[in-house]
C-alpha cells in the first residue's frame, strides 16, 4: 500500500469535495470554490472527479438534484416546491432537465409514483415473488391493512 499513499491523499480531497456536493446540493454551489477548497486547479479537479465518479462535478450535481427531486416528488411535494428545494432556480429548466433525464415530466412522474404507492399498499403481493410470499406465510387472504 505504500505506493498508494499520495494517491489516497488526492482521493481523500476529491471524496471530501463530492461529500460537500452531497450535503449542499440544494444551495448555490460554486464549483470553482470547491476546487479551490480542495487545493486543485479547476481543470485538475474536474479531471480527477470524473476519473473517480465517471461524471464531471457539474454533471454529478445535476444528476444528484434530479435524484433528490424524484424522492421529493414521491412525498407529495409540489413540482414547484421540489424544483427550488433541490437547488434549481428556474421551473422550466428543472422540468426540461427532468424530462431529458427520466423520460417523463415531473408531474407525470409524481402521478405514476402515487399510483404505484397506492397499488403497493392495496395489494403488496403484486410486488413480491410468490415463493417469498409463501415462505413468509403472506397469503392472498391476509389483511395487510392492519398495519397501514
Amino acid at each position, binding site marked *: *500500500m505504500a505506493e*498508494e499513499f499520495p*494517491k*489516497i491523499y488526492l*482521493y*481523500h480531497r*476529491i*471524496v*471530501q469535495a*463530492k*461529500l460537500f456536493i452531497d450535503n449542499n446540493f440544494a444551495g448555490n454551489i460554486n464549483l470553482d470554490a470547491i476546487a479551490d477548497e480542495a487545493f486543485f486547479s479547476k481543470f485538475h479537479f474536474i479531471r480527477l472527479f470524473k*476519473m*473517480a*465518479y*465517471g461524471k464531471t462535478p457539474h454533471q454529478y450535481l445535476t444528476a444528484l438534484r434530479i435524484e433528490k427531486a424524484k424522492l421529493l416528488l414521491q412525498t407529495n411535494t409540489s413540482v414547484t416546491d421540489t424544483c427550488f428545494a433541490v437547488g434549481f432556480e428556474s421551473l422550466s429548466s428543472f422540468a426540461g432537465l427532468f424530462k431529458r433525464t427520466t423520460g417523463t415530466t415531473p408531474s407525470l412522474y409524481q402521478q405514476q409514483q402515487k399510483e404505484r404507492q397506492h397499488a*403497493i*399498499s392495496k395489494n*403488496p403481493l403484486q*410486488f*413480491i*415473488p410468490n415463493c*417469498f410470499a409463501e*415462505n*413468509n*406465510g*403472506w397469503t392472498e387472504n*391476509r*389483511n*395487510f391493512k*392492519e*398495519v*397501514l
Partner: protein
Amino acid sequence: MNHVSIFVLNQDSAYDFYVNKLGFKVHTDAAMGPGMRWLTVCPPEQPGLEISLMAIADGMMFNKESAQQMRELVAKGTFGFGVFECNDLLATYEELKAKGVEFTKAPKKEFYGFEALFKDDSGNWFSLGEKEQK
C-alpha cells in the same frame, strides 16, 4: 437474476445502511402485517436487481431456534453474500469510510484484481472491486 436476499438483523438499520451509506435505491417498501415488511433495494446502476433485505424472524421461514442461530451467525460475520463493483475503488473506499462503513480489508492489489472487503450493519460481508483497474 432479478431477486436475491440478504438476511439482516434489523430492517430499519439495514435501510439506513444500504440506502444512505451505500447509495442504493429503494425499489419496494411494503408493510406486510404486524412487524413484517417487504423491503427491496437496488444498486443505482442495476434497477432490475432487487435485493431483499429480509428480517430474520421466527415463525415464518425460521423456527425460533433457527432464527436465533441465524441471527448469531450473521452477527459474527459468517456470511459473505456477494461482490460489488464500483467505478473507482479508492474513491469509494474513502467515501464509505467517511460515512462510517466498516472495512475488514483496505483496497489491495491481489493476483485476481483490486479488492477491499466491508461489512454491512448486520455483519454480512462483501467484496468490493473495481470495474476496470486503473
